[in-house]
């Protein structure tokens, strides 16, 4: 790969303009919620606005300082989502507490977690000055991922909530290690497959014009599949199981350029889905609720309520604070997209989906332009896991696919999710910065590393 012919530009000014606009959307959202719910602007909204502005400034400065050549669009997109999420959670606090004053408010802690997320974001940019260094820790990350996935199953610290055993409690803090495991797995898959890709790309039998992998190479994919099934069986977490397996198959496909892996992956997925349907009542309930939610409107009350809310929102929505999204259980986390669709309408929901789509597009672009194999696989892994997660959660609440428990990145209430997603964006920005940075005039990096710029 030759040095890019275009003149590298930092584009930090453009990013700042976009950031101001993104924050502005949320600020006006806050004000609209106050006016919509109570007719005045309550004083505590200024604290929340201040928090968001501070977070935006912090994130922007971190990028300016530590990744000056990074993609200028990602950060504003993410800040816009994060801000919309904060506004919606604040609005749902008001609505839910109007129904029952004892319900806890989440907006304050979500602002705090956003700060933690920005800190994590800055820390990743600061510590990981070159993403290729992560490859040295491939197996460390793999092991960490396994440990993180096992933690919730341990006694004492492991904790079951709403039917899924995906939480750990450490003192006053609770944490979903699955979110962190996702990043560790993406690094592990990228590091492992960039090395093994040539072996795994060897063709086996040819069927319907597609080269199927050799039988003896099936080991890794079967292992990935078993881990996913293990998550489904022991943690009863359908969404994460699907997500991890999708992540693995996608990275495998990109690394080997063999569509055969997609075929094998799809077959294994189909078998796993069938197994889940037959073996687990909760999977069957979700599936039946998807096919016909009105067959049992009381049991499927959540998805039915979400659909009612979306339909009630219609094209232009009820307006901030004017709908009744609080009627849906978990309207602030799993179902926050339905809440947004109710109050901001089809228009707002499509805008949010497009923001997600743009984030994915920027991620794919980073993967395409990245010059090293590890970076490519890492970027595509992180991006595709993000895309799959958005598809699963947005498709679930709008009844495109059966409902599985995943959170909408950056929007949904939940500390682990927001912190880890900020870390993902930091990694993508790091790869992007590396890619767009002008080539050093002289070979300042060691010759070892130059040999790592492998073929594309």
């Amino acid at each position, binding site marked *: 790969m030759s040095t890019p012919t275009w003149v590298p530009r930092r584009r930090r000014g453009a990013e700042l303009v976009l950031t101001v606009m993104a924050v502005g959307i949320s600020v006006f959202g806050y004000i609209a919620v106050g006016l919509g719910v109570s007719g005045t602007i309550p004083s505590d909204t200024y604290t929340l606005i201040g928090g968001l502005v501070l977070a935006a400034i912090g994130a922007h400065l971190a990028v300016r300082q530590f990744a000056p050549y990074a993609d200028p669009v990602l950060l504003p997109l993410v800040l816009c989502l994060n801000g919309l999420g904060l506004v919606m959670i604040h609005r749902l606090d008001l609505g839910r507490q109007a129904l029952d004053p004892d319900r806890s408010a989440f907006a304050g802690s979500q602002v705090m977690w956003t700060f933690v997320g920005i800190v994590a974001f800055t820390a990743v940019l600061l510590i990981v000055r070159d993403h290729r260094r992560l490859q040295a820790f491939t197996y460390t990350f793999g092991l960490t991922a396994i440990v993180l996935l096992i933690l919730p199953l341990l006694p004492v610290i492991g904790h079951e909530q709403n039917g899924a055993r995906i939480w750990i409690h450490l003192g006053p803090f609770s944490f979903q290690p699955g979110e962190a495991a996702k990043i560790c797995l993406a690094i592990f898959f990228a590091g492992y497959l960039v090395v093994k890709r040539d072996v795994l790309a060897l063709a086996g039998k040819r069927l319907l014009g597609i080269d199927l992998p050799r039988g003896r190479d099936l080991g890794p994919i079967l292992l990935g599949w078993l881990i996913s099934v293990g998550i489904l069986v022991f943690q009863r977490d359908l969404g994460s199981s699907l997500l991890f397996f999708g992540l693995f198959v996608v990275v495998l496909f990109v690394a080997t350029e063999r569509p055969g892996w997609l075929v094998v992956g799809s077959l294994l997925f189909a078998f796993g889905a069938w197994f889940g349907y037959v073996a687990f009542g909760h999977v069957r309930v979700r599936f039946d609720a998807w096919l016909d939610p009105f067959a049992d409107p009381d049991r499927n009350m959540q998805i039915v309520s979400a659909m009612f809310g979306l339909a009630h929102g219609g*094209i232009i929505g009820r307006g901030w604070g004017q709908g009744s999204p609080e009627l849906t259980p978990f309207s602030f986390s799993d179902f926050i997209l339905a809440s947004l669709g109710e109050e901001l309408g089809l228009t707002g929901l499509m805008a949010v989906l497009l923001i997600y789509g743009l984030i994915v597009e920027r991620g794919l672009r980073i993967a395409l332009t990245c010059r090293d194999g590890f970076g490519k696989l890492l970027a595509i892994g992180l991006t595709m896991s993000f*895309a799959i997660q958005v598809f699963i959660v947005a498709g679930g609440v709008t009844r495109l696919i059966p409902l599985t428990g995943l959170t909408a990145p950056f929007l949904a209430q939940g500390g682990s999710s927001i912190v880890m997603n900020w870390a993902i964006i930091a990694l993508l920005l790091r790869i992007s910065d590396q890619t767009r940075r002008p080539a050093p005039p002289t070979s300042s990096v060691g010759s070892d590393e130059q040999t790592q710029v492998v073929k594309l």
Partner: protein
Amino acid sequence: MNKPIRLLSIACLLMFAALLVNANVLQVVQADDLNSRQGNKRVIDEEFSRERGAILVDGTPIAESVPTDDRWKFQRQYPEAALYAPITGYFSYIYGQSALERSQNSILSGSDNRLFVNRVVDLLGNQEPQGGSVELTLDPVAQRAAAEGLRDLGEGTRGAVAAINPQTGEILAMVSQPTYDPNALASHDLSATEAAWDQLTNDPNQPMLNRSTQLTLPPGSTFKLVTAAAALENLNLTPDSQVKGGTELTFPGKQYTLPNQGGSNCGGDPISLRQALEVSCNVSFGDLANQVGEEALVQQAERFGFGADPLDGLAFEKSRVVGAESEGLEDTQLAQTGIGQYEVAATPLQMAMVAGAIANNGVVMNPYIVDTLRAPNLEVLEQTEPSEFGEAMRPETAGMLKDMMVSVVDSGTGSPAAIPGVQVGGKTGTAESAADRPPYAWFVGFAPANDPQVAVAVLVESVNGDTSDIGGGRLGGPIARSVMEAVLR
């Protein structure tokens, strides 16, 4: 590795396209359907907080929304609740809507597409949206007369009255007893609503059943009009034709015999068809049914509206001649069918349509209750035009039957329905139900014969007290008369 990444980009494009299309389907295409589902609290809250349109009878609201100062801003009220409950239905926060409150919901709540311009104007003018109004065909005097007639039979009477204009199909009166108070279900005190609901749904008398359209019972001798029509049409008879009479009808090779009511001999054997109808002779009509045959009898009933649901806006149980699982009737069963027994079951409205068709030269009109739909600014959105259901028989046949029904009132079992100075036609019916319970009393009729303005059917399902002398003429005749008098006043 860029080729697979490009493929994955296309996959992502498809995934997001699917999400966007699906959101459009849900929030635009399916939105109306979802919004109109029962149990949709968002829509109920919104509709409860809106100035819902009125349901009017002769310009007077029988259901209206009045402002309150609680969280819903408006309270639905039913000024003459008991009288109109089967027609208005209820508008409940918990239990949704029924009857016209349900079927006319889009107009009443203002969400109808024809009110779109009004909504936009309200939105731009920052006004609360308003619902349109629904005006009914009912005649309030006839309605009251029907209700009072049933009430006068005493506490605990169950029954129904349906009256239509035979020439147009307008429903003039529709009464069901016992009735209920929809105000109790529309209350904003939700625990009181629940208590009222429990009481109403557990009441063995089923007060929320609209007996004039939802209850099918054996019509007894009033069904002989259908049998007579089939005989006149298919056997080329006239009112003076001789038909079988006598005390009982026997069947070759069977023990069973079909006797007359009270063991009479119908005045001889043979007798004229006119006399057979006047005395409601079971032997004659059992025999005629077998002469006509099952197929022709069922066809004749269907031409009157049996097996169809011609009424819009209210729950309507289809009337039937034979049961759904019937595999052909034996001669004894067909004879019982011919006198409105065995598996024959009809609603009072259906029987009013039979009388109406005879009065209207054989033409059955589709019954309707909604006359006019109006926007909040009183502009007419829709005016129901009378429409024909079909021709039940030739005009000559209708003329002969009409003539015979007038004889029934002038000199037969229908005399309690006679109105001085008006030619009234009628037919009584007393249908046996189970052995351990009193029979159902029916009366159908029309007036005046030369220019029919009203056709009426009265059903008395049960009365308390003396049950030894239940007869369609004695119980139903006076009610039918007062309803017809109210219309003709």
